[in-house]
């Protein structure tokens, strides 16, 4: 019953301010109680990851063939060996850094363009009618199909790569923003209008905050897709990037390196999604549990 404990402790400290700070033990206990749910999630997360590694290890060590064949899938230890080799190689760090930079630019541009565009499309029917069909046609085109066009469109390869990650994240953000706009409660809009709010204020005070949760969903999905597009995009680079690293490993048929590249993309993708979620909490404190 942590709630009652805190309730009992609080009035006392409020009445007589403590002369001595609470002991470390008390603080730790209090911190533990406050963050119990979070800690539990982390602990379970670690256990599930460990279980995943263990299952992977067993499947590959015993080369299990049960319809799905693990005969030649690299084991976690082989991938770890690749990893230790890779981190001693400054090039690997460069691969990671360059990919992060490309994702950062591609994703940022996508957010800067897609969010306002989605808001405007949601508000003005004509803009929606003009842009929506084009967007719907372009949306299903996979990143890899864009490679030749991207090379021809942009003067440098770095721009072509950023362009492909931009495309990857652009559409999820746009679609989610539109969705958010369509769900804005018309009663709120009418209320604001009755109170004499002008278009700009309604936009700022009603539409934007109301669609923010969906915008952030779009950003999270968009970030994921940006990483998905990475291998396709970095085929152009021919030199650096974690997607390129994976691709090169494929062209030399080095399975542990392929797995290492996949995992690196996964981990980086997770990290960037966490960043977005963090930003979401900062921007929308009212949505904190």
């Amino acid at each position: 019953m942590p709630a009652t404990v805190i309730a009992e402790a609080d009035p006392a400290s409020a009445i007589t301010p403590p002369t001595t700070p609470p002991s470390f033990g008390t603080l730790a206990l209090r911190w533990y109680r406050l963050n119990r749910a979070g800690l539990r999630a982390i602990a379970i997360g670690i256990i599930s990851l460990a279980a995943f590694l263990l299952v992977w290890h067993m499947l590959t060590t015993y080369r299990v063939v049960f319809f799905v064949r693990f005969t030649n899938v690299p084991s976690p230890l082989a991938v770890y060996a690749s990893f230790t080799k890779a981190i001693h190689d400054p090039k690997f760090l460069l691969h990671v850094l360059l990919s992060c930079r490309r994702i950062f630019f591609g994703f940022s541009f996508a957010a800067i363009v897609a969010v306002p565009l989605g808001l405007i499309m949601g508000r003005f029917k004509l803009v929606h009618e003009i842009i929506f069909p084009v967007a719907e046609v372009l949306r299903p085109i996979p990143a890899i199909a864009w490679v030749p066009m991207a090379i021809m469109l942009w003067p440098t390869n770095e721009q072509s790569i950023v362009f492909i990650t931009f495309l990857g994240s652009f559409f999820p953000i746009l679609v989610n923003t539109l969705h958010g706009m369509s769900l804005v409660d018309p009663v709120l809009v009418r209320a604001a209008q009755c109170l004499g709010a002008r278009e700009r204020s309604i936009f700022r005070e009603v539409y934007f905050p109301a669609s923010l949760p969906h915008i952030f969903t779009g950003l999270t999905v968009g970030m994921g897709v940006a990483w998905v597009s990475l291998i396709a995009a970095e085929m152009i680079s021919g030199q650096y990037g974690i997607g390129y690293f994976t691709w090169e490993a494929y062209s030399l048929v080095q399975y542990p390196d392929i797995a290492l590249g996949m995992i690196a993309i996964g981990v980086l993708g997770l990290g960037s999604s966490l960043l977005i979620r963090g930003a979401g909490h900062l921007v929308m404190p009212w949505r904190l549990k």
Partner: protein
Amino acid sequence: MVRHLPTLSIAMSVTSLALILTQPASAETVTLGIGTQDTTSNTVTAGVVIRQLHLLEKYLPKDGKYANVKFELEWQNFTSGPPVTNAMMANKLQIGMMGDYPLIVNGFTFDSNPESKSRLIGVAAYSLAGSGNGIVVHKDSPYYELADLKGKLVSVPFGSAAHGMVLKAMQDRGYPADFFQLVSQSPEVGSTNLQEKKIDAHADFVPFAELLPFRGFARKIFDGVETNLPTWHGIVVRTDFAEKYPEVVVAYMKALIAANQWLRDDPKLAAEKIQEWTGINKEVVYIFLGPSGNMTTDPTIKPALIDAAATDVKVLQNLGRMKEFDPKKWVDDSYIRKAYAEMKLDYDAQLGSTKNYEITGEDSFCKKPIADPRKAGEVWVDDAGIMPFSSTACTLGAYADFKAKGKKINVAYVFDTTRGIKLFADQAFFAVGNGEVAPFLLKKDAEAYAAKISGKVLGFDDAVKAAVGGGKT
């Protein structure tokens, strides 16, 4: 590489799933997956020709233990070797074909496969001098030879035969590892990048070093012959399949021999058909596979090719891409030998011969027979076919004559005077003087020769005029 990635693999897994589910576990059906590289013109006799002409079906065993067996052939096309290796490792393909470097990687990768190894069972085509791989630049660029590319951005598909050629060329000339800015790009990406001038040069395997110049935006400045290291494409098989169905593998080798024969019987028709099947221009196919072409199609496994493979292994080891691998132990010529024996052909005689089939016939312009095919030339007139001519001067003279008569000319071929490789005449540099017209791939070779005969270096159009005027400038 680009095309097959997600959709095809999904389609593949769905089909294989459906196949597994619908098939009874009896030995009634033998499924044979064959990974081809249709656009890599070198491998066509081992892949697309056999498929399109149904040659394998013709030779598959039908009696004895195969009396009740139904064969299920699954052909899959890729644009490079590594995906073939990947599918072979996964046992989706049992036979695959690829260039020298990917082949070694294939053999080495299979070393750690507990189910099966891979064995080299035949050769599709080879060039002992190393022609086929090449380096091209944009046609408007100021680069005319390898040394001009110092510090420039050069792309090559890593792990390909062309990569090996670049490394060998650098080694031969004592260039440091950072002489070029070497990056890895697949043929598709590299070609587009070259067209857009994003890179200074692109090194690639068959047929791109000829195809890109033919498509009009590139110029070849380095040919693999300058490395003098053989390049070749071969066929590998999974040993678990080959040991269980050796007769099927022998049948495949017979189909390969038959495809080879078909190609040589009518190279023009073959080039046209291959264009229809693969989309590679017939003029480009013909420069590789036609008579006196830059590739020799020959299924026998020549020791020189295996020695070259050993050299390639060292290159990969130096790059830290490979550990121990012995190409000699990886060769298994029993199937191809059996195929030769059963078709009553002499394997050892073919093994000892490194002769290509050459241009023959009568020069209809200069009215004399063709004596030296590597000094000769050919003109492909759209409706009249491919005509041989005894010398470069006669070839260019005939070209001018056809033009004057208003004929549509597809392409003209001549041979590099010193290296003997077949060239597109309109891409060559000609040393002209003293009644002589000598074509060259490289401007610098043409200049040196022109200085020797106190002549001049001319482009194609001027060379044609000079040839008509009797070789005077």
